[in-house]
Every structure is written in structure tokens, then in C-alpha cells.
């Protein structure tokens, strides 16, 4: 490890912000529910990264423990979301957010 000390938590925060923005754009732009899930996961992981970075700046363990909770919540969300997608796929061949439009008004 030569001189890695120069990487301040700010760098990680910037990276996290960028990842969050990418995920956010993905959810808004992409139309495949699975890809949208992945983008939401990306957003959550960006948040995890910022938690860890802040945890490092404050030398406080709490930010790191939070990451565990977020991980578990994200996993639960994915399981539920995939369950719903599979339920829809059983009834129709493709799952595309634009095709799923029974509800309009």
C-alpha cells in the first residue's frame, strides 16, 4: 500500500453520489423491471458506500452496522420483487414495464 492515505472519505462520497445518480437514471430510463431492480440495488449500495465512508470519518461503528441492515433489507426487497415478476411472467411471456399497462387513466 503505497500512499493510499491520500484517498480521503470525500472520494468515496463522490463515487457514491455518482453511483446513486447512475442508478437513479437507470430506473427512470430503462423499461425492463429486472434492470430497474438492479438500478435500485445500485442506489442502495451507493448509500452503503456513503455510510461506510462517513463511519470512517467519525471513527464511529454505527455507519458500518447500518450497512448490514440495508443489505438484508435489499435482499428481502429483491426476493419479493422477483417473486412478483415471476408471477407475472407465468401469465405472459415478456415482462416489460411498457407492456404492463392494464392500469391507465
Amino acid at each position, binding site marked *: 500500500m*503505497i*500512499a*493510499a*492515505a*491520500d*484517498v480521503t472519505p470525500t472520494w468515496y462520497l463522490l463515487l457514491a453520489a455518482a453511483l446513486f445518480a447512475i442508478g437513479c437514471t437507470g430506473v427512470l430510463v430503462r423499461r425492463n423491471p429486472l434492470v430497474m431492480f438492479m438500478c435500485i440495488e445500485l442506489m442502495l449500495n451507493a448509500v452503503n458506500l456513503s455510510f461506510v465512508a462517513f463511519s470512517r470519518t467519525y471513527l464511529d461503528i454505527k455507519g458500518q*452496522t447500518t450497512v*448490514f441492515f440495508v*443489505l*438484508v433489507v435489499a*435482499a*428481502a426487497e*429483491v*426476493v419479493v420483487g*422477483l*417473486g412478483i415478476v*415471476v408471477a407475472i*411472467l*407465468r401469465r405472459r411471456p415478456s415482462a416489460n414495464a411498457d407492456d404492463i399497462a392494464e392500469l391507465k387513466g
Partner: protein
Amino acid sequence: MPTDFSSFLRGWLTVAIFGTLGLLLAGLLLGLSALVRPKRPTVEKSMAYESGVDPVGDGWSQSQIRYYIFALLFVMFDVEAVFIFPWATQLERYAGFGLVEMGVFVFVLLLGLVYAWRKGVLRWV
């Protein structure tokens, strides 16, 4: 080399030089062989190599839907283990209170497993 480069960036410079050299070398060798070798493609030659057996179907085959529920269950129980590791490292500090808490946690997880089992999810269809 300007001196106001941070030592950190200088560390990365090595990586960048090394990476570029590697890419150049690989490109050079591949390019040379492409120039020199004879080119006579046939259907058999351009087929994907699968240890001598003819490939069947598409590269992007869809896996069977019955796998997904195991995957989902696995993800759920796997991720819950994240709470057990930190607890295990600090077992003595948490003492009796921690043991009871973890017992409750694992018990609730077990209830989930019992539910999955009774719903027939664990059976191979």
C-alpha cells in the same frame, strides 16, 4: 515529472503504464499472427469449441423456472447470516443477553424455514 503530483497519483501511474504495456503486447502478438497466418474459415472451424461435442442450442438459453425459488430462499437465509458473524466475534462480550437475542433471531429464521418446508418449496419438482 512535476513534483506536485500526489504520491497517491504517482502510485497509480505505475499501474497505468503497466496496463498500457500489457495491452500493447497482447495486441501486437495477436495482430502479428493475424497477418501471418492463412485464413480459410469453414463452418466446423468457427463453431464454439465444447470439448469436441457439437454445441446444442443458443448461448443464451433460459434456465428452468423451478430453480428460482431455491435461489430466492438461498439469498434470504444467506444474507441473514450477516448478523451472526459479528455476533460470533464478540460472543463473550455480549454474554447471556446476546445468546438469548441470537436464539430468538435464529428461531424466527427457523420458523421461516418451517413455513417454506410446509409449503412444499423445498421439494424438487
